[in-house]
Each structure stands twice: as structure tokens, then as C-alpha cells.
């Protein structure tokens, strides 16, 4: 039995990716099971999904605790040692990151491959939904599934033009994936960050959730308070003296509502450098 763990954020499609892998495996005559881990998951929040692939019907229903393969759909989560936690010795991790496998700082006995799925997704789909953009790379480096089976599964889930766009993303990630190589850092660094944020954002640091960061142009701002009213996470604070907003960035998950609502386009969403 092969067990896979997917790390992503709500909105990146980790759950859909798990179902595409399970469907593709079944296309190839194997039994499969795709399990999402459900809690207070929502757009931007880190989440986990699992896949089991076996030659016989999968019986167990516990979550995957010690995966053979870890797939990370988010470039910031990809920096956390937690993504290789409990990975089987000699396992494989596929990261969505612009870095080459040689530059990856995660440590332990496993192989690393990387692909810049966010850029591929932005350029082929126009949105940072990285689930399909990573699956081409997945097919190539794991050898578990044929890329044709994944395309077939995608066409079932996304019929029409959306399916074609996703297949274009897959083909690019198949070509652009780097590695796998044996991880260069031998000793696992101390795991400092728990990637799962329980509860809601107001009291938590959710700054790592952002793909885009809002930046306020005080010259353009007319002090109308529209952004302050609309921010769903109360991340926008008001400076009474200057009559201008400022952003409490640890509470901002980068949803872009403020930029969308600003009547004078004084807020710009800038892609986060990873």
C-alpha cells in the first residue's frame, strides 16, 4: 500500500488533488481512498488530505500517519519541517517552491523534488490554485501514475475549457519539475512551527497564509474607512490622528477584499516573495 499526504491551504485544491490521484489510480486498476482532514478549514488555512493506493480494497479508515510521499501545494508551508514529519525513511517529498531541490533546507532521510507550481498556475489558470499544477510533477517523479490517467481524471472532474487549462498546467509541471535528489540536510532541524492554525484568525498569526499582501498608498487614500469596514479579519486598524488605515499584518490572510472595495484604488495586492 502506498500512502500519500498532501499539504495545502484552503482554496489551493488539496482535497481535489487527492481525489484526482485516487480517480487516476482507479483508472489504472488499483483501489484507492482519498481522505480530507476536516476541521475549521477555509480559504487560506493550512489543511491536509490523504490518499491510499493499494491492489486490494482499502479497509482501514484511520488517517495516514506515516506517509510514503508528501506533496506540498503551498510555497510557505513548503519551508516548514512539519511537511516531512513522520515521512517513512527513504520517502519522497514534492514541494511547490521556486527553489531547486539542492537549496531546500528540510532535513532527514528522504528524497526532494521541487516545482514552481504557483507560477505555473498563475500563468496557465490565472489563479494561484496549485493542485493540478503540481500533479504533472507528481506523476513524473513518483512513477505511480501515468500522466494520461491524471488527465483522464481531471477531465472527469473539470469538463470543458477548465479541464484543458488544468491539463496545460499539468504538462508544464511534468516538464519543469526538478529532482528528486537525496535531501542534502541530513539531520532534521528542530520542528518549530505547527502548520495547523486552530480556531479563527483574529487572535492568531495568519501572515503565512498570504499569496498576495495588501499595501496602502497613503497619498491616494481619502480616509473613507471602506477598507476598515470590509476587512473580514479586523486586520485593518485606524490611525485617528492621520485619519488613515494601517494593517496589522499578522491578522491579514491576504484575501484582497480591502483592495477590491477601495473606491480610489489606494490598496495594491503585491505577490509575496518566498
Amino acid at each position, binding site marked *: 500500500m502506498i500512502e500519500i499526504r498532501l499539504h495545502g491551504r484552503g482554496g489551493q485544491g488539496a*482535497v481535489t488533488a*487527492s*481525489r484526482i490521484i*485516487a*480517480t487516476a489510480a*482507479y483508472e489504472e486498476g488499483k*483501489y*484507492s*481512498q*482519498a*481522505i*480530507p482532514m*476536516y476541521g475549521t478549514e477555509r480559504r487560506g488555512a493550512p489543511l491536509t488530505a490523504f490518499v491510499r493506493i493499494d491492489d486490494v480494497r*482499502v*479497509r*482501514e*479508515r*484511520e*488517517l495516514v*500517519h506515516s506517509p510514503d510521499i508528501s506533496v506540498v501545494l503551498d510555497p510557505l508551508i513548503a519551508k516548514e519541517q512539519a511537511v516531512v514529519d513522520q515521512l517513512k525513511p527513504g520517502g519522497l517529498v514534492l514541494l511547490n517552491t521556486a527553489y531547486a531541490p539542492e537549496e531546500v533546507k528540510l532535513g532527514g532521510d528522504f528524497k526532494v523534488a521541487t516545482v514552481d507550481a504557483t507560477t505555473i498556475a498563475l500563468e496557465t489558470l490565472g489563479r494561484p490554485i496549485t493542485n493540478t499544477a503540481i500533479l504533472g510533477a507528481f506523476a513524473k517523479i513518483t512513477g505511480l501514475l501515468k500522466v494520461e490517467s491524471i488527465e483522464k481524471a481531471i477531465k472527469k472532474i473539470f469538463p470543458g475549457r477548465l479541464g484543458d487549462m488544468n491539463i496545460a498546467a499539468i504538462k508544464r509541471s511534468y516538464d519543469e519539475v526538478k529532482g528528486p535528489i537525496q535531501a542534502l540536510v541530513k539531520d532534521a532541524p528542530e520542528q518549530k512551527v505547527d502548520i495547523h492554525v486552530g480556531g479563527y484568525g483574529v487572535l492568531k498569526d495568519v501572515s503565512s497564509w498570504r499569496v498576495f499582501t495588501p499595501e496602502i498608498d497613503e497619498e491616494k487614500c481619502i480616509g473613507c474607512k471602506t477598507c476598515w469596514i470590509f476587512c473580514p479579519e479586523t486586520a485593518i486598524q485606524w490611525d485617528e490622528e492621520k485619519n488613515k488605515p494601517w494593517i496589522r499584518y499578522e491578522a491579514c490572510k491576504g484575501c484582497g477584499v480591502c483592495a477590491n472595495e477601495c473606491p480610489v484604488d489606494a490598496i495594491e495586492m503585491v505577490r509575496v516573495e518566498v
Partner: protein
Amino acid sequence: MSYEVMVGNKAAATAVKLAKVQVASAFPITPQTTITQYLSEMYAAGEWDFDFVNVEGELTSQVVVQAASRTGARTFTCTSGPGLLYMHHPMVRTGGFRLPVVMAIVHRNTKGMQPDHSDLMSQQWTGWGHQYVEHAQEILDSLLMAYKVAEDPRIRIPIAVGYDGYVLSYTAEPVEIPAQEAVDEWLPPNKAIPSILPDEVDPSTFARGWGGGDPQMPWKTHHEAVMKIEDVLKDTMDSFEKTFGRRYGNGMIEPYKMDDAECAIIAMGTIAGTCKAAVDKMQAEGKKVGLIKLRSFIPFPVKDFQEWSKKLDGFAVVDRSICPGKGGPVFGKLRASLYDLEERPVTLQFHAGLGGKEVRVHDFEMIGDKILKAAKGGKVEQVTWV
């Protein structure tokens, strides 16, 4: 026949479509919500001719299917956890009127979001048949069988089919979808149209009025009808296998690797699947413990367990719900079933998976070891919180 990798909730919606349900009504609640979404999509696409009634709450959804069922329509509703509690009052009426409504319960515990069996277990007095299933294929198959059983002229009784939320409702796995023609032939349109005359006029009616007579009579006939589910379910399982080639034990219980077993673990729902993986592992190590998956809690398979008691030294009962102050419902019912026997196997109570706590393969290995030890006369505490 075709296949699809689908989540448990889609398997339920697919069964509703295959059964050509005429009236469906449901109010969305996590983790049941996506059933109503799939049904709404099927309605919008005009996949078959049915009415989907949007309502403002679960109580009304039950009243809608109750009223539709009284006219002879085949009906479906579904809910979870607190939604089921809100539905309680009209459920009692559906049972009392002996209407063949079929309902899917996507388990969510009554103290929080995650699954356990406390929602359906809290509805024991409503006079429905209560079944618990393990995987997505079994959801589809059991809902089809539920219509066949519910509409059987011998009983005409509503059936609730429960499956665990999240871990099954949202888990995708391969499901075989029977051909529509085969289902049409096996499950002809509902003919169980109940009399709606007052019982003073028509004694065969179950719509008991307020005109006097023996007030205990409706309870007695209702109880007898629910008890008869056992025979009807067993017949239905046989005919289901003949047509579709799959079966789940005798319908009441599904023994797994029990041929050489000396002890049995009794479990319901998804954790029974995890138990199967544990049984495979334990038997490979020479441990003689198997699984008896309990599918029908109401009526309870008293005769089956009495038969198994003759061959076994111990039962480990895993309850995924508890009545505080009273204990695990399956454990209590199993022990009551064995009381009349002269020789009774050892019984142990395990509380597991409550509030959605994960139950793992190694938990079942611990349970297996304990019951094997207890059956050999070893000292083991009777109640364990896993």
C-alpha cells in the same frame, strides 16, 4: 454497471437517483450538506422526474416526506447530529403512521462537529429501523435495500441508514453503480400506500385516530412490525445478492474472518473497516479473533448473537456512543440478548471514537488482545475507554 471514485455523500445521492425517489426534502447541515447539493444538481439537470422541496429546517423536511409518503410517493430525506434531534417529533409520527420513508443519517455527534453514533442512537424510540454502514459502496447498496425493506407489505416501516460523517461522507473511494434497468426491475415503484382512514373505520390503518379503542394497540403492532424487519432484511439481502452480486452478511450482521475465531469484536460503521485491517494483522500473527460487524441495531440480531455464542468464548463490544449514566447501547443490548443462555461468553465493553476521536488499527489490536486474554480467564477490566 459503471464505476466512479466518489465520496460517501455522492453514493447516497446516487442511490436516491437509482431508486427513482419521487419526493426528496432536506435541510443542509454539515456533514450531510453535500447530499442536498448533489440532489439539487441532479434536479437542476433533470436527471429524473422528482420533486426536491426546499425547507427552512429539518423538522419541516421530515413533515414533507411524511406527507408525501402518505400519498404513496417514494421519499428521501437526510440529516446529521443536531438536525436529527430537531427532527425527532415528526420522526415519531412517521414511525407511528408506518410510512416507508428512507433517511440517510450522516453521523455527527451531539456535542460537537465530528462523527459518533450519538445522533441516531438518540432516536431509538421513534419506531424506525436503524442501520449502520461501513463504506461508500455499502451506503449505495444499503439505501437501495432500505426501500425494498421499508416498502415490504409485511411491514411498511421507515428505515434510517447511518454512516460516519467526514471520514466517510467526504472520503472518495471506488463505487460500483448498478445499471438503472437492473434497479428498476429489482425495486419496482412503491405500492405500500397506507390507509389513511381512522382506525374505527378501517382496522388495517396505522393512522391511529383519537376515537378510543385500546391505546396500547398501536405500540404493540408497531413493535411487532419493527421486529419483522429482521426477516425481511435477510430476504432482501439474498435477493440483492442474486441481482447485484454483493452481500453484507445476512443483513443484520456481517461476520468477517470468523471461521476459526474464538472471540469476536463487535463494531458498527467505519471503525468496523479499520477493525477488518486489524483482524487481518492479528490472524496473520495466529490470534484467533474476528469481527462481527453489526449492521442493524434496531431490530437487534438477538438470534444471530445467540447462535454465535455457542461457538465463541468472548465478545468485545465497541460502542461509538454512550447514554450517560446508562452506558454503551450495543453492549447493554448484547448482554440482554445472551441472558437466557446457559453458557455465556465473556463480554467486554469498549468506548471508542466518541466525539470523533480517531480509532486506529492498533487500538483494535489492543481490543483483540484484551478479549483473548479475558476469554482465557485472565484478569481484564470490563470497561475500557480507548
